[in-house]
């Protein structure tokens, strides 16, 4: 029992580290504009799959590390991640019931909420770009969601996490 709990923590943590690496990948500039928020996508998966283990508090901690990782003000990602993960935990039964292609839409909305919150908190500091392409990471994130879902589900089943 204890061992499986530790294993769960390790697997989730490792997956989040992978997501952080993806987040700061040195892609060319034209592509980097579309780079989705991998960390949040992974968090959404774990929040839907094992909501009793991954909660708002964890999301907050991951958010703070994300802030440091991307050089934001501390608290920006923390705020956005905790709100998004809260919604996921609340609605996990419903989200799980949707077929995969229908999950894309709610995931897109959640990613937009995340970007919007970060955008607002960023505006404390100064004006920012409001072009339409600014929101493309959310779209890209929603489009890669099925791949993330199936991959992480395989990981979860392999390590027998429930």
């Amino acid at each position, binding site marked *: *029992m204890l061992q499986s709990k530790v294993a769960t923590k390790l697997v989730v943590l490792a997956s989040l*580290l992978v997501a*952080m*690496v993806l987040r*700061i*990948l*040195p*892609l060319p*500039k034209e592509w*980097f*504009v579309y*780079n989705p928020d991998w960390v949040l996508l992974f968090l959404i998966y774990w929040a839907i799959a094992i909501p*009793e283990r991954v*909660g*708002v*508090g964890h*999301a*907050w901690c991951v*958010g*703070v*590390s994300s802030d*440091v*990782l*991307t*050089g*934001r*003000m*501390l*608290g*920006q990602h*923390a*705020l956005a991640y*905790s*709100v998004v993960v*809260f919604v996921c*935990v*609340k609605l996990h039964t419903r989200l799980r019931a949707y077929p995969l292609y229908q999950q894309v839409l709610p995931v897109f909305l959640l990613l937009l909420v995340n970007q919007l919150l970060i955008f607002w*908190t960023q505006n*404390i*500091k*100064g004006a*920012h*770009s409001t072009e339409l392409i*600014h929101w493309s*990471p959310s779209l890209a994130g929603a489009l890669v969601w099925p791949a993330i879902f199936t991959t992480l589900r395989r990981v979860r089943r392999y390590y027998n996490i429930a």
Partner: protein
Amino acid sequence: MKPLFTKRPSPNFGLSVCVFASLVLLACEQKALLTPFRELFASAIYPLQQLVNSPVQAARKFGEVFSSQARLLDENESLRREQMLLKVKLLKFSALEQENLRLRGLLDTSFKLGEQVMIAELLAVNLVPYEQVVVVNKGSRFGAYPGQPVMDANGVVGQVLRVTPYSAEVILITDPNHAIPVQVNRNGLRTIAQGTGQIDKLSLPYLSSNADIQAGDLLVTSGMGGVFPQGYPVATVVADTGQGKVFAKFGAAPLAKLDRNRELLLVWNKPDPIPRVPGQASTPKGSPADHAAK
């Protein structure tokens, strides 16, 4: 067996606590109270950045190992020639420096020539789109400090934004949140060059319409504001003549190769000498020649 009645705080309660904590963090960040906390986190994140950087570095090393001898010889030859030219220029420079100091002494004005520099390597890491912030591999352990000017061989690159023990974030002069006080080298006209968000463009928003400025003018740092030392080249002026404009609008193109360089120079603008670098003797590739105190 899973215990049936484990009591955990409800998500609602958790959310309110987290939102409150985030707002507190944001408020503290406004007052810049959290630097040590952030440093701690950043040190934890640093291995991750190294991990992302390492394949790029490995590829570079690989390319170096397998580059042909002929090319290396060529490069060596051209470097030697360049070094000779620079040396000749320097010969004259030291004489001029002495003369300048003497003249300044006559005028009773203080003027500081010469700064100390250290080479820092860029980490191949992207932080966020739309912001031009890069990460370098020298941090507070090496004496870097926030607000420190950063150059490359051609001109001013930017300034240090945040430091952690082993790395530093450098904001480029083309970042939309960055402005640098400059003056026209030809006539000493002072103005401010702001970043635009494009890597090859600066804007000059505070020029009067009859200012004496032309395309091709060299902009150098004016030393106002106290961050950048005086007299380093920043950009060349370019005219932006559009249809139906009576007066040409002027912008500037940065001289530093902002999107191509791999090595940057951190410059010490302080009178006291830079601190000893930890383990400098043991690291053969730490380029100890960086400490060329001038």
